[in-house]
Each structure stands twice: as C-alpha cells, then as structure tokens.
C-alpha cells in the first residue's frame, strides 16, 4: 500500500508556511546556495539523474529540457514558469503557491543558474488575484533577503485569463505583449523562445520540485516513484469525494489507494467515472481504480497522467451533461487559430446539446466520433486534441447512456442529485 509522501506539501499545515521565515526554518534557500556553488552543467546533470519529469502534463524530462539550451551562445536566456493553471479540474499550482511560494522562487534561482539565465518570468493566470498577491510578496521578501537581485531576477506577469496561454508558445506570445496564440514549431523555445532567445518553459510544480532534489540528491528522488516516473507529485482530488484536496504521493499510486487515504467517494455513492489528469485526458471508470497513476501506467490504460487532476464523479452524474459542459469550455477557450479546434468545438457543442436534450439519432454518435477523429491530431496545438478526449472516452464507456437520452427524449438524470446541496431541501 503506497503511502502519502509529502515533500512539496510537507509543511503546508503550518500556519505561516507561506512566509520566508517558515521556509527558511525548514531549510529553505539552502538548496539554491548549494546549487549556485555548483557548475551549471552539474546542476542539469543532477536534475537529469533524478528523473524529474514535467508536471504540466506532457511529462517531458526536465533536465533534458534544460540541456537543450545552447550554452556559450552569448545570448540572453530566459526561464519562464507556467503558472497559467487553467485546465478544468486542475488545482495544484494555486494551493502550492498559496502555501509555499518560496519553493518556486528557490527553484527559479536554481533553474536560472543551470540554464545560465539572469531573468525568470512567472506567468500567473489573471483570475487568481490572491495567488498573485502572495507570490508578489514572496518575491519582494526574497529580494529583501538577498536571494534575488544578485544576478537572478524574477518578474511576475499576470495573464488575462485565457486557457490557450497555458500552451507554452502561446504563453510566450502573451508574455511578449501579443495575443496568445500558439507559435509554429520549430523553432522550439529552447532555441528561439521569449523575445526569440533560448527559453525554458516549465510548470510551477516542476520547478518547485527542484530545491528538494538539489538538497537531498538524485538518488533520494529516484527512490520514490516507479521505474520511469520518479519522485512524488501532487494529486488533486476533487468532485464527489469526502475529502477533496491535494494528496502528495509517489508517482504510481492508484486511485483506489488515494481514495482510501482520503476518505473515499462521498458517502452513499459509488464511483462512476473520473479524469486522471484534467478534462483533456480521456475519462476512466471504476475499472481503472488500480491503474498506477504514473506517466506510463495511465498512458497504457488509454489516457494521460496530465496534471493529475483527479475529478471524481459518482453515479448521480450524467456523463453527457459533464462532457457538454467541458466542451462548452473548449469552445469558449479555443483561440481560433486553426480550423479543426475553432470550428470543431463550435459544432461539437451543438451536437452534444441536442443529444443532451434527446434530439437526434444514434447516427449522431457516429457523426460525433467521426468529427472527433477529424479534430484529433489535425489541430495546430494539443488543445484541439484535448477537446475530443472527454467525448470519445465517454462514448467508449457510456454509449448506452447517450442512447438513453435519445430514447428518453432528454436527460434521464436529475441534475440536482449530483450537487452538494442535493437533499438539503428534501
């Protein structure tokens, strides 16, 4: 039975966990001091050896990404931290930054040193004002304490609230002051990123994981997790569960274990479907309770680990309704650059709305799947692909439920029953 392994979240339960005092009390900023005394290449090697992989969804090895930055090119390099957490269900960076912003700042210092950057940018989504305030304060405190401003600077940039700006090249465009739309690759950010300079774009959690790796060594980190997915990570449990929240555990833990550790699905109900990594990852059902939640395990089961946003839906939830709401999100957030995502989401929503209302025939399911096939892998960036995941996976597992809408002449579910306030006025 895998146990929780709090590293990032080790001290979140302390009242002042977000302060520089608390962070220093627990050994904060010692890792950066250690790293700054190392050769940059040695830092990169250490991170490579640790097996740390990107926590933003794709799982690309972090050290390898850093290694792509050309060295000795006499150009400015940049570190950009992606804190534009916008995926439905994903809620790890916000609590991380609220509870311990300094671990990110220290991670930035180490990463900047490794990639020979003097400047880091933290791009935070605009809606989370409280996080912006907290990180701003932390940056200020870090400057006062002399951790920043001595060769490494951090600028906090607040986005305007666009899902697409979580895509790394769109984020760079947005950061440069343009409209956020994904860029054509190549050139990749490692060669021509921010202001056409070599740039590393990392997720908050990836960078925040670095100080502990530097402090405790690659072997310590390798000791956790599975063969190809090392270390611990934040699993964000939400939805129909007794105790939602962040659960930090070694990669490879299963949902069954997390549910047991956290108190399970809400009382009196049973698991119907869930997302392993946010709404863009194909749905899982109760058949996947024992799937190891690491990059390989989830992938082998037909989904993606993504951001480890475990949204739990019990039997009161109409899957068509849930999928339609997600699809409406994708339609609203499609940047419009490419045809499949822009026009496809426009159309998908209309078909799903009809299906939810019981309008249509079984042929519409075939049409829906064919449409998804014409969007998946045809769009400019991964966001178009993501829009199809909930649809194709829900039809795969819950085809009968779709058809029930048609035979029933509308949704057979009572939507109130899936709410938290269900039963309150009964």
């Amino acid at each position, binding site marked *: 039975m895998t146990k929780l392994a709090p590293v990032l979240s080790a001290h979140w339960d302390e009242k002042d966990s977000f302060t520089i005092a608390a962070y220093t009390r627990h050994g904060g900023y010692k890792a950066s001091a250690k790293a700054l005394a190392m050769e940059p290449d040695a830092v990169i090697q250490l991170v490579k050896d640790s097996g740390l992989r990107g926590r933003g969804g794709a799982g690309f090895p972090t050290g390898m990404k850093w290694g792509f930055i050309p060295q000795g090119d006499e150009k400015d390099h940049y570190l950009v931290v992606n804190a534009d957490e916008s995926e439905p269900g994903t809620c790890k960076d916000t609590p991380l930054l609220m509870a311990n912003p300094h671990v990110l700042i220290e991670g930035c210092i180490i990463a900047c040193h490794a990639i020979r950057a003097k400047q880091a940018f933290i791009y935070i989504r605009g809606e989370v004002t409280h996080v912006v305030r907290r990180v701003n304060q932390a940056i200020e405190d870090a400057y006062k304490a002399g951790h920043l401003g001595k060769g490494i600077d951090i600028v906090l940039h607040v986005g305007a609230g*666009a899902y*697409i700006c979580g895509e790394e090249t769109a984020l760079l465009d947005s950061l440069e002051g343009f*409209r956020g739309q994904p860029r*054509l690759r190549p050139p990749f950010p490692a060669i021509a990123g921010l202001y056409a300079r070599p740039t590393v774009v990392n997720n908050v959690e990836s960078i925040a994981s670095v100080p502990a790796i530097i402090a405790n060594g690659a072997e310590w980190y390798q000791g956790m997790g599975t063969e190809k997915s090392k270390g611990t990570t934040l699993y964000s449990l939400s939805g129909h569960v007794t105790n939602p929240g962040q659960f930090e555990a070694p990669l490879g833990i299963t949902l069954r274990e997390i549910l047991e550790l956290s108190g399970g699905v809400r009382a009196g109900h049973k698991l119907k479907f869930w997302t392993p990594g946010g709404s863009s990852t194909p749905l899982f059902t109760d058949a996947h309770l024992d799937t190891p939640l690491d990059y390989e395990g989830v992938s082998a089961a037909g989904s993606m680990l993504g951001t480890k946003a475990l949204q739990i839906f019990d039997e009161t939830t109409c899957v068509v309704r849930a999928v339609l709401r997600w699809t409406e999100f994708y*339609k*609203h*957030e*499609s*940047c*419009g*650059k*490419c*045809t*499949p995502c*822009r*026009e*496809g*989401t*426009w*159309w998908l929503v*209309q*078909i799903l709305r009809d299906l939810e209302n019981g309008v249509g025939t079984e042929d519409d399911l075939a*049409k829906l799947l*064919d*449409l998804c*096939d*014409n*969007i998946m*892998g*045809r*769009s*400019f960036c991964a966001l178009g692909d993501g829009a199809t995941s909930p649809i194709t996976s829900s039809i795969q597992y819950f085809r009968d439920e779709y058809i029930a809408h048609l035979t029933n002449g509308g949704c057979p579910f009572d939507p109130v029953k899936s709410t938290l306030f269900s039963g309150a006025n009964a």
Partner: protein
Amino acid sequence: MTTTQENPTAQAVELITVVIDGFEVSVPKGTLVIRAAEKLGIQIPRFCDHPLLDPVGACRQCLVDIEINGRAFPKPQASCTIPVEPNMIVKTQLTSAVAEKAQRGVMELLLVNHPLDCPVCDKGGECPLQNQAMSTGNGETRFEGVKRTFEKPVAISSQVLLDRERCVLCARCTRFSEQIANDPFITLNERGALQQVGIYENQPFESYFSGNTVQICPVGALTGATYRFRARPFDLVSTPSACEHCASGCDMRTDVRRGKTLRRLAGDDAAVNEEWNCDKGRWAFKYVTAVDRLTTPLVRGADGVLAPASWPEALAAAAAGLKGKRAAVLVGGRATTEDAYGYSKFARIALGTNDIDFRARVTTDEERDFLAAKVVGSTTTYRDIDVADHVVLVGFEPEEESPIVFLRINKQVRKRALKVSAVATKLSIGVDKLKAEFIKVAPGAESAAVAALSLTAKSIILVGERASESTGLLSVVAQLSDKSGAKIAWIPRRAGERGALEAGALGALLPGGRPVADAAARVDISTLWGVPSLPVNPGRTTSEIVEALNSGSLDAVVVGGVDPLDMANSVEVLAALKKSFVISLEIAPSAVTELADVVLPVAAITEKSGSFLNWEGRPRAFDSAVSDSLNRSDLRILSAVADQMGESIMLGTVTQAAREIASLGKWDGARANFASVTAPGAQKISGNEALLNSWRRLLDLGTMQKGEANLAGTARKSVAVISPKRAESLGVKDGDILRVSNGHGAISLPALVEDIHDDAVWVPRNSFGTQTLISLNAAHGDVVTVVKA
C-alpha cells in the same frame, strides 16, 4: 533598346530529393513540402499558405502523411510548414487515406461557419474555397446547427469591406500587411469561431497596399468597395496589361465587361512586382471613362472659340499651324515607349528640330546630361536591390513615388536587415518603415551628405526625379558611383519617362541613347528613318522651350500628356502656351486645352496597345483591354499630322513603331560626357523663413485618380511639417494652421511637428487642399515664410 537580364547567380544550391506519392523530386534545401509537391504537379489544397508569406499552418487544409528515415509522424502534418528533408516520403491525399480523410474533415469544418452566399459573393466563380470545396469537400453537409453571424459588411477603410461571416481566418491579409507592406493596421482579434479580422480603434486600414489583401483573400471576406456586387468573374474578359501609374512596372490584369473596365488586379511577375501592386495601380482607372473625356477633335476658329471639328479638318489645321513654323515638342512622362518614339521622330522629321523634352517638371541641363551619360541603356534591376549591401535613397521616397521598389527594399530589410540610408530633409513614413538611416539635410544641401557616403560595388543608389531639384546633386551621385563602383538606378515617378528617354524624346539624344552631337549616331538613325539628314543642333530642355516660346524664338508647340500645373514655373508655362500655336494631344481637358489651337483626343491606356519601360528599362507590354472607337495611339495621330505636312514619319500603328524600335539595335559608340556641376548648397534664411521641401504622395489630385472617391479616402492627410524647434519658436502644436507663403502666394495647412530639418518646411505637392507648385510657383529649396495662421 535595353533588355534586362536576370543575373544567373551561379551559387550552388543544395538539392534534396524526396518522394511524394511515389515520385521522386529534387528541390532546393528549405523548400516546403507543399511547394515540392507543386513541382510534381500534385496540388495539395490550401488556404493560409501563400508562397510569399511566412508559413502559419493555421487552416490545416494541406495535411499529408510524412515519414522520414522510415519513421512516420504519428499524425498528418501541414505540408505548408514543413521543409523537405533527406529520406522524406510524403503521401498526399492521392496515396494516403488518412491524409485524404484529414483534408475532407478540415474542409467540412471550414464550411461549418461559412455562409452559402456564393451566388451573391464577388468571389464566387474564382474562389479557392468554392473550388476546393468541389475538389475536397463532400457533396452534402452534415452540419445542421446554427452558423455564426456578423453584421456585414464592415468597412475597414473607404476601399476595403470585410464580411466576417465569410472569413476562414487564414491570416493571409494580416500577414501581408505586417510582412509585405509593413503596415500592421489589421489584426485578428477575439477568440474561437468569433475570431475576426479587425482594425485598431480609430485607425482604419489606410495602407497604400491594402488592395492586395482583397486579391489574396481565399474567400470573399475582403472585397473592394468599388467593385463589390458589380460583376461575376465569369462575365469578365481579362487582358494582361501593365500599370501606367508609375515607373515600378507592375504586371497587371485588366478585367472588362461589355467594353467597360471593372477592375484591375496585380499580375504575377517574380522579377518585378512579384504578386503585388499598390492601391493606385489597382483602383485608379475611372479616369478612362470619365464624363469629361475628349471624344472629338477641337479646332479654335477665327472667332477664337474652340469648336468640335472632324478629324480631316483638325489634322489639316494642325499641319497648317506647324508647317514652316519654329516648333517644339513637349511630351509628358505618361506616353508609352512607342508614342514617345512617335513624338521623337515627329520632332526630328516633321518639325526638323531636336527641341523635344519628356520632362514635365523641374528640369536642368545637369539632369539631361546625367540621363544621357548614366541612365540611358543602364541595366540596374530589382535583383540588384535583392543582393545589395547598402541602398541609398537620394531625392526619392519609394513608398510614395515607386511603391513596388518600396516593397522590394522592405522585403530585404525584413529578410536580412538590408542597410538603407535616406538623404532627405524630412523623415517620411516610408523611410521610417524601412528602418533607414535618416541623413537629415537642409533642402539644397543634399550634395555634401551624398559625397560623404562610403559605398561599395555592391551598393546601389536609387535616385529619384526630384534629385534634379538640387543643383549639383546628380553630379555628386555620379562621382560617388564612379568612386565606389556602386550602381545607379534612376527612378522617375511616371511610367513613360524611361521609355521616352530611350526613345530619344530628349534634346540631346536620338532613339537608343544615341547622342545627337555624334555624327555616326545621326547617320544610324537617318538611315533607319530613310531621311537624308537629321537636325544637328542639340535641342532645348523643357524650361528652355518655355523660355523660347515666351521670347518669341519659337512659334509653335506640340503638347502631349503634359499638365503645366505639374511644373514649378507653371505661370511661365501657361504664358508661353498662350502666345504660341499649340497642338494638344490629350485624353481629357486640361490647362493646355483652354490655350490650344488644335485639340486631338487620344486613346487612354486600356484602349490601346503598347509598352512602357519601367525604371529598370524592362519592357512592359500590354494589349488594348477594351475595343473602342477611340483606339488612337498618339503616334498614329502624329503620323497623320506628319502626312498632312508632307513629312511622313511612317508610324501608322503601334506594331510598326515597336518593330522599328526593335530594329534600332544598341548604340555601341561613345556615351555623352557628363560635366559635373558644383552644388551651391542651401540658401540662407532668417526669422520665419524656411526652405521649401515637398514631394508628391502616392494618392493625391493626380489626373489619373479622378473619380476614385474610395481610393482618395485612404490618402494621407495634407499637412505642413515643421521641426519641434520651429514649432516652439512659432508657438505651434500639431493641428494648428500654418501659413506658408512667398511673394507669389500662400497656402494654409494644419501643422504636424515631426522629424524634419530645422530650416525646412514640408508640404505635399498637388495634394488634397493644397496646390503647392501653383500657389507658390516655387520648388525645392526655395525660401518661403512660415507663420501661424
């Protein structure tokens, strides 16, 4: 006659061989897959792809399957964004079911929000979306939902209308504006299916090149305000043509329905205009069908009144008026090469004089000698701009005076940060866009700045016609070129000037650049023309002809396509015409008409065939686009007048003239010598005095822009530009009215405080609300007084 040759750059280009649909093709490294397929004749459908714009990969229509070294991409790739690589195997829709389905899927999606208004859409019949929906789309739609709707159309400028519903968001227009025209005035905004092309608040799409966006729009989203709903493409008869508006030499297409020109499009000529043209070339053609076109000959009777006359009457009156008189020829820069040749031959044979000049502007002997020694026969081309290490602009504003030259320089600035220097008094919008080094000089002080330049044999000096307005400047340009080996390109504003120069419509030159003063040259031409001899004395220049008419040493003048109001000394020109016997060959009434004794109506450009030589000396031939009873080229009329005079010039048709020009051969004798002139420098000023600086904007009161209200709507505002220092001393801010005056007259314009030499004031010539040349009878470098009105 000059023919330009493409420099066969013998640089070895690395070739890469790829297999597309089973066929091998070798293409230069860096070629995109979609282009390599074209080479095999495999057409991959596309919308956002455009060979002259940076790839964007937005529409996803061109998806194909690709494998490299046996490793296949997991999903189909946009062939418009991927360059070929060794061992690449491409399967297009012809051989890959996946690619075929992907393309059909994208096409279906593109049509989801596209209105079915093809029957009323301007693009219907020539629409890439329509065509590719036929080749790649499904016969019936599966979309049963609600399409997005927008208010339509939205005017994004006075000449371009936007139907957002039709837009497929390919970003061709926005990329063109940003990358090619360097006018990023339109952009995509909003998100998802509501994404749309938009303009900035309070800043319409006022680019000189906006019409190109209409032409490259792959759907009917952008339409021209003037052409909208006027015709169906399949009802138009298209004729390849050449642009008559400037010396850039754009290849064009003229579309005519039932004898009436309805639109003109940029033609494809990679060596010249690529696929672009300017809005003037595209949208200024109504002057041809203007209500006040001259249609019948007019003869001034004994009562002093101009009255319609028959052609025989008019020709007889013209011949009688010229016979035995001391006559000269003024031919404007708008004549075709053949017409200019006609005037040239007419002057020499029928009038027995070398008194002919094509320069209807400020002219000097220095310029005449410069043209004879340095320009006639020269072969500098656009290609030289492409490979130059440094481009110097002297008396030349490319965006205003030769827009395609501007685009070409801009292309190289964008591509390889080509160094550009501009010797000028005011920093213009165009020069600013080229990120040029602005060498600020007082009007008249250009020479010293040019002399101080350091160039190489790979540099190129682009000299505008206004260089003649600064005495000694052309001499310094010649010296700089001699010293450094830098090439010179003389870029006049008007389409016919280079052709007229080569045709000998200049006092010092016979056709083919043969110096009049050279006996062998005269023998060449007299033999060709079958005449015993040619006049020996070098002819007068425009200003000398005007002087001679005024002083009585000339009696008569043949004026073709000259507007006296174009000249800085228009007062003297009009006086000269009043005194003399004047034959006017024109398409529409002008200041000459009122003073003419015989008016002979001639054909406008679309009504006749002929050719221009652009600034490169490259022939730009065209056929008549409309069959019209007025199809009378100037030379045919001149030929008839000469016949009446008993001095036949044997040029009955344009073809005949063209054949004769072709048979001239090259002049391999000595060129005219160029005697340098010393620059006097700028005039001294004091108090509120300033030195006049001005040029013509692309869009102004030019007679060939008559009747084009939509085009005029995007013209730059008329302003008087002064420096911050002068503004401060006058207590003037932007928008205050400035009065610019001299002993002759005054003009008042809103002030604009900009980067201009402190000693100067800039005003546009011949522009809306101001007729600088007429009002002030002054030119570049003259002293004027500037005060707050």
